[in-house]
């Protein structure tokens, strides 16, 4: 249901701001019955700049390419080829009076991003506008003034404005992805930007380090590491690196933060059985959440923090269950296949993504909370594991062996536009998408 509401909001925004009422019937903008949204053709020509200014020309190309890349990343747009453009706004100002909209509708554009970029004394002045070429009107206009090195931040901000205007959500541009890579010879946790750029190594434990988990404010990362020779739980502040360790007897694994709280769930086995416990953000036990015999691992929280999905072997095979935290009521939701693990609750709350093994291959599925009709999102492309939702719920990051070694991939929530996010030495696994980090 939430999904439908979302699409309707999307359409409503468009109707009220963009679509001329007269062309409503003919403008089949989004088919809400289709799981894949129609991609909107958008033109992103080079930004106008003072001719002859070498730095400005270079930055203009860089800015336009960056903007195209970010918009393309969302999966909402069909990026039009710059070579096909009739008009070159780089030679004019982005002033609406100078844009001849029929030149843009003629090349198929329904949206146009045009703007100017000036460099004055090391300061970047950027003006960016989003136009509806059919309505021949401006939708958004912003001016930014920033350091030359802050270009990417400016472009991220304007991309977020565009996505907010079109969807009512600020998108993924202020998020990061944590993942595990084995490049140093040990699995360690790494971070990168939402689009796979700006990769950095986060842990240097020189020991198996796995299962990264972001707190919902993005200030903390919990993970499991064998620093002391066994799988213990570490809770690390991403800013000042302050740390808590939970090193109970047995395994201390699969942390998952409660949304909006400084609390997390994790699996311990010190009692003799592998159960999920609720902990404070400093690792103190609040209460035991599961009690059945067998393995209970991989908790993931509903967005309201009232329910937890997890993997349990209580039926004999690993399957996904949902538990109400207040009354303890538990329901199994996966029945298709004999190996369903790695649940990830969607930010909209309506679906759970997970990896299921059929015919010896792992693939990513989504399933509603009623447990009916799982939808397979990957297939015929190696093993696909560890799904994690983008904070706006529009994309899913996962690991795949489709190219041989395990790499990080991203796709839309409907399984379309599957592409590799990055490839560095070693193998990359267990991606976890952060919340929005500018909140």
């Amino acid at each position, binding site marked *: 249901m939430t999904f439908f509401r979302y699409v309707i909001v999307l359409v409503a925004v468009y109707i009220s701001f963009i679509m001329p009422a007269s062309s409503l019937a003919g403008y089949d903008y989004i088919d809400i019955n289709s799981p894949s949204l129609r991609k909107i053709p958008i033109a992103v020509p080079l930004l106008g700049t003072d001719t002859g200014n070498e730095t400005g020309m270079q930055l203009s190309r860089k800015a336009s390419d960056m903007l195209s890349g970010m918009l393309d990343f969302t999966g909402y747009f069909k990026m039009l080829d710059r070579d096909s453009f009739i008009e070159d706004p780089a030679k004019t100002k982005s002033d609406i009076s100078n844009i001849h909209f029929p030149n843009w509708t003629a090349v198929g554009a329904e949206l146009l991003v045009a703007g100017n970029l000036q460099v004055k004394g090391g300061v970047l002045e950027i003006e960016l506008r989003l136009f509806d070429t059919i309505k021949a009107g401006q939708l958004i206009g912003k001016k930014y003034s920033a350091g030359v090195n802050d270009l990417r931040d400016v472009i991220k901000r304007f991309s977020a404005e565009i996505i907010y205007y079109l969807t009512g959500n600020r998108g993924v541009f202020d998020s990061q992805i944590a993942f595990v890579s084995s490049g140093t010879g040990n*699995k360690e946790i790494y971070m990168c930007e939402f689009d796979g750029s700006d990769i950095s190594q986060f842990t240097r434990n020189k020991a*198996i380090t*796995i*299962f990264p988990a972001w707190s919902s404010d993005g200030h903390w990362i919990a993970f*499991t590491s064998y620093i002391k*020779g*066994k*799988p213990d739980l570490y809770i690390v502040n991403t800013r000042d690196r302050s740390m808590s360790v939970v090193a109970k007897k*047995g*395994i201390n*694994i*699969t942390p998952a933060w409660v949304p909006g709280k400084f609390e997390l769930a994790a*699996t311990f*086995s010190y009692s003799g059985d*592998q159960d999920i416990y609720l902990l404070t953000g400093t690792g103190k036990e609040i209460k035991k959440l599961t009690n059945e015999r067998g*393995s209970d*691992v*991989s908790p993931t929280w509903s967005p309201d923090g009232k329910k937890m999905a997890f*993997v349990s*072997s209580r039926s004999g*095979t*690993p399957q996904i269950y949902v538990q109400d935290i207040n009354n303890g009521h538990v329901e199994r939701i996966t029945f298709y296949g004999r*190996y369903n*693990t*790695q649940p990830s609750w969607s930010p909209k709350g309506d679906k759970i993504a997970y*990896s299921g*093994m059929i015919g*010896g291959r*792992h693939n990513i599925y989504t399933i509603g909370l009623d447990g009916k009709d799982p939808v397979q999102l990957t297939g015929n492309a190696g093993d696909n*594991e*560890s799904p994690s939702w983008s904070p706006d719920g529009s994309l899913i990051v996962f690991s795949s062996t489709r190219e041989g070694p395990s790499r990080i991939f991203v796709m839309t929530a409907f399984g379309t536009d599957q592409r590799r996010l990055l490839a560095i030495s070693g193998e990359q*696994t*267990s991606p976890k998408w952060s919340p929005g980090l500018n909140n």
Partner: protein
Amino acid sequence: MKNNIWVVLAILLVIPGLLFTASCGKKSLKADIETMKDKTKEAPVPPPRAPAPAPAPAPVFQKTPEPVKISEEEIRAREKAAAMQVLMNEDVYFDYDSAALAPAAQETLKKKAVFLNKYSNVSVTIEGHCDERGTNEYNLALGERRAESAKKFLVDLGLAASRFTTISFGEEKPIGTDSNEEAWSKNRRAHFVVK
């Protein structure tokens, strides 16, 4: 009830085992060294550490050199080293997505129990491992159940629980990385390390 059965079983298994090792110490030593040699061919496992060569000839004034006694010690040390190698070399194997001990796994553990009974001061770490087919999280849990299941079997045979530590590595430390049943079956294991 269950415990009683295990006690009886333990008596039945362990006491003959002890008698066997006590009476035929040398015979089993020979067999064990052979087994070990076979293993050495398969994988480059270092041969057991023999004790240092016999000390230099005793000073002349000492009337009774004790070559016989040294040799007995050596035999015992060799025997123990061989036993430790067998304990560590031979893994306990499991079925896919299972921590249950199949008959072959039980036999392997019984052999280990015989050694552990003989060398009561030896403590071991039991590592639980999995093949690559499952997912890391669940496999880390499964590996622990495998290690615990091996430990429980040995404790039920009468060995002190305090001698065993378990640790799961899930699918993080495979022996081979081939993706076929042969490689997988070797990775689904409980591995013993003498502390």
